[in-house]
């Protein structure tokens, strides 16, 4: 992420200093202020959704949904806790129904439950991110709305191709993520055999360090 970010801003700034140096700073500010606007909108959206979600927890609806999807989620995300699976299920349901505002806070909670305390993302966390970034929405409501606003004759024509394209991209993502996870696992399994052969520092007498 650091590398992508650095390249993006550095190359853009170099281009701007050639083309229009006076606008560079104002563009950066406008980026930051659109983040501020977005944050305010999101506070409102998440306030509603987190309230509804906490009610859903209270009445046991979350647990019911979890039971329903457990056979699938348990197989995809092996070894995750029940709470993590519950958040994953709720995130997927919200995504399927196109409730992006509800999906994001749930996704964040699911990630918190899945982390193992290290700085590296676990295979399950990556799989979860991949599924979320290939969109599993059943009905692209925003696009249909935009199409009918632009005067389309058949705004909902794109539903079927969108659904198929989403299935293709999600399946591709899951398969690739699983392949990567397996590949890394094999690497990890073969590593510990090499490690003990290396000399350990603690075996060296302390006195020698002074030389």
């Amino acid at each position, binding site marked *: 992420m650091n590398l992508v970010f650095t390249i993006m801003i550095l190359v853009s700034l170099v281009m701007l200093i050639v*083309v229009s140096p006076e606008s560079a700073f104002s563009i950066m500010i406008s980026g930051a202020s659109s983040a501020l606007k977005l944050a305010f909108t999101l506070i409102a959206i998440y306030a509603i959704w987190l309230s509804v979600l906490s009610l859903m927890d209270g009445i046991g*609806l979350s647990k019911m949904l979890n039971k329903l999807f457990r056979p699938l989620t348990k197989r995809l995300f092996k070894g995750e806790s029940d709470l993590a699976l519950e958040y994953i299920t709720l995130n997927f349901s919200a995504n399927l129904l196109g409730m992006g505002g509800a999906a994001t806070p749930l*996704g*964040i909670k699911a990630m918190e439950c899945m982390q193992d305390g290290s700085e590296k993302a676990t295979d399950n966390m990556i799989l979860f*991110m991949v599924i979320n970034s*290939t969109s599993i929405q059943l009905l692209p409501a925003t696009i249909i709305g*935009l*199409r009918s606003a*632009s005067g389309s004759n058949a705004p909902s024509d794109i539903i079927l191709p969108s659904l198929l394209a989403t299935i293709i991209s999600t399946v591709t993502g899951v398969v690739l993520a699983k392949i990567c996870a397996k590949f890394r696992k094999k690497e990890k399994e073969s590593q510990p055999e090499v490690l003990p052969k290396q000399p350990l520092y603690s075996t060296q007498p302390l006195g020698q360090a002074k030389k």
Partner: protein
Amino acid sequence: MSKYILPAFIIIVILWAFIKKVPIYDNFVKGSKESITLILSIFPYICAVLIAVELFSLSGLNSYLAKIMSPVLSFLGMPPELCEILIIRPLSGNGSLALLEGIYKTYGVDSYIARCASVIVGASETVFYVGTVYFSTTKVKKLRYAIPISLIACYVGAMASCILCRFM
């Protein structure tokens, strides 16, 4: 029909909570409080990403990259006019909607190019946004293979979109 789903769902949840004697007002207070702490932790990430995205699209780097990429797209059998939207799609949701509207105006809403663009935007997500926001409250710094695989999956979906739009 779809406009009734959301309010109906919320009504059902509230009625259900009322019957089960779950305190509704207390839960709304709790939810709103959680929302503020959540935004406080994800705002720095949104801010950094949006500064980069704004620089990227307004500096002209985006359209410059699109020019370089267009022969690749033609080679893959995709309309080269979609370059810009393919580059912006994983970076910014609002940016890609704005480009989509531009495509509707330039080529006509029901043209092949516009339908392809609609399906591409509808069937993918803002990969970099998901990558930063979802991990924002965890200790994770290294995403390993997460972003490359998400991008590959999205672009496979985009290629499929263009093929599907020819027949549908």
